């Protein structure tokens, strides 16, 4: 028996019962597939972004009543020394965090670049802090730095540093927050750099060796230039993290509450306090609007520079 004797599986051509062309059906499917996420992002991310830009022009009371307030919130902001201090703290935090993350991420990546069992273990260990919540991280470091009796304070006491209250001293608190942020985030940036390093074809290094390059010159003339897309991504993302407070908020909330003497009060934290401690939603909105505007600008620039999120040479 051959196949042609069996009935056709598809039966008669179903042209008659077809209502929509298949291209139309593809379009409908496309819209339906995108709909849930598009709607959700619109309502829970897009709308808040727009609200953040507009909220600053209103006075909002605790029960959801709004009153147009013109530029009052922005005028208040201009005259508020705590706002300026928070802005300064944010810039200081970013200025310390971004280079620290770049150096530690790249350094760790270079340290564990070669693939072997030992480096596999090291990679996992360096990444491990990412698994722990920032609340727990903050608690651990708070405990470690308890004045005089915390493990770190004790370990440092032979150097005469045992008496320092790292989180209680305005001169030290920001360093402590940056240090813990780096400890938490470095594993992620190590991975990004590892990805970048492994994308560099080994032949370049071999060619450079034959051309007489030592380890330092191949790092300088091959690794760094070819790592440029990765570096760009890392600098951008860590900058945004620093400003938008991806990690900092939880740490500050638990470790310092913005103190001591407002030395660790980043803008995001100051805005949060204004809204949820003092019920100044409008004022908080004014502060947030500045952050949203900055972030939108950064995103736009990134999008243009990378032609839609493509970070490699083309």
């Amino acid at each position, binding site marked *: 028996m051959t196949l042609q004797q069996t009935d056709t599986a598809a039966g008669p051509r179903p042209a008659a019962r077809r209502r929509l062309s298949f291209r139309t059906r*593809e379009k409908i499917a496309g819209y339906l597939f995108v709909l849930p*996420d598009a709607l959700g*992002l619109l309502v829970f991310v897009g709308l808040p972004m727009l609200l*953040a830009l507009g909220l600053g022009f209103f006075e909002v009371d605790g029960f959801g009543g709004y009153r147009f307030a013109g530029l009052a919130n922005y005028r208040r902001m201009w005259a508020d020394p705590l706002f300026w201090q928070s802005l300064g703290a944010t810039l200081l935090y970013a200025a310390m965090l971004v280079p620290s993350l770049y150096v530690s991420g790249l350094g760790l990546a270079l340290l564990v670049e070669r693939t072997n069992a030992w480096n596999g273990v090291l990679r996992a260990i360096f*990444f491990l802090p990412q698994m722990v919540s920032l609340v727990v991280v903050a608690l651990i470091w708070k405990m470690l730095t308890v004045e005089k009796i915390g493990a770190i304070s004790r370990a440092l006491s032979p150097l005469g540093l045992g008496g320092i209250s790292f989180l209680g001293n305005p001169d030290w608190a920001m360093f402590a927050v940056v240090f813990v942020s780096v400890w938490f985030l470095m594993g992620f940036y190590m991975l990004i750099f590892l990805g970048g390093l492994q994308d560099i074809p080994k032949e370049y290094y071999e060619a450079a060796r034959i051309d007489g390059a030592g380890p330092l010159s191949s790092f300088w003339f091959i690794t760094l230039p070819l790592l440029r897309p990765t570096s760009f991504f890392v600098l951008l993302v860590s900058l945004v993290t620093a400003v938008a407070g991806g990690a900092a908020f939880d740490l500050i909330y638990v470790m310092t509450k913005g103190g001591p003497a407002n030395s660790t009060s980043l803008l995001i934290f100051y805005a949060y306090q204004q809204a949820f401690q003092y019920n100044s939603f409008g004022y908080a909105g004014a502060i947030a609007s500045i952050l949203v505007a900055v972030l*939108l600008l950064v995103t736009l620039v990134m999008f243009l520079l990378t032609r839609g999120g493509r970070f490699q040479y083309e």
Partner: protein
Amino acid sequence: MSERVPKYRYTAGQVTIVRAIWVLIGAVLALMTLFPLLWMVSISFKTQAEMFDMGLVPANPTLDNFRYVFTQVDFVRYLLNTFFVAATVTLVALLFHSMAGYALARLRFPGREAIFLTMFSTFLVSLPVIIVPLFILVRSLGMLNSFSGLIIPSIFNAFGIFLLRQFYLSVPRELEEAALIDGAGHFRIYWSVILPISRPILSALAILFFLANWNAFLWPLTVTRDPELRLVQVAIAGFQGQYTAAWNYIMAASTVVALPMLVLFLIFQRQIMDSLKTSGLK
């Protein structure tokens, strides 16, 4: 001999020394990274009296701290709440993001690029920045102090869509075309062909999403007051306010909260690290 060796070559002895130094640096850094976590676990087994002793191994290990956490506080409820929220967010997010990512990568419809661009523009906006307006919005939707308020706003993020779209762009188009010819519609192709072949990336994303929601603090802190709805991160942060110096209890609670994620990491570390390594870069 040695003068014939080119400048960029090193003797076996030099190589060994460099290797040894390299290993040493790695070991020291790893120990420094690990130390705070070990200390957390150590303290959670210590009594109040020896809490600030310098020994890493407790002299008189005790389970009292854990007993306290589970009996004096409603910690089990917080754990269950958190599990429920994190698992729900993860499942729904995977479904929605894979649908959107697939459509944005492969289905042809007018406005697709504009939609993708708009979604992409929310890429860098983080929760702390929009927390105030988001809170007002959720409040006006009547979702304060509810599971829906905890869950629904946490589902949507451009990162997952972006990553999945990148993945679907790399799936050979012929696979869908073969299914099209085999008689499948677009929903069928998504369900029977696309979803099954995305299993590796979906499982990696599932871990990341679950992790992020298990560890989430700011949103649950802001959107709920009701102790019945409390999630673990909020609970232990509150704990610390309550028992300021009782680090043994706080660390026992922290250990309980951190442990599931650390175990998850031990099991899935390859998938987690691989999926992050290429995130957004390709």
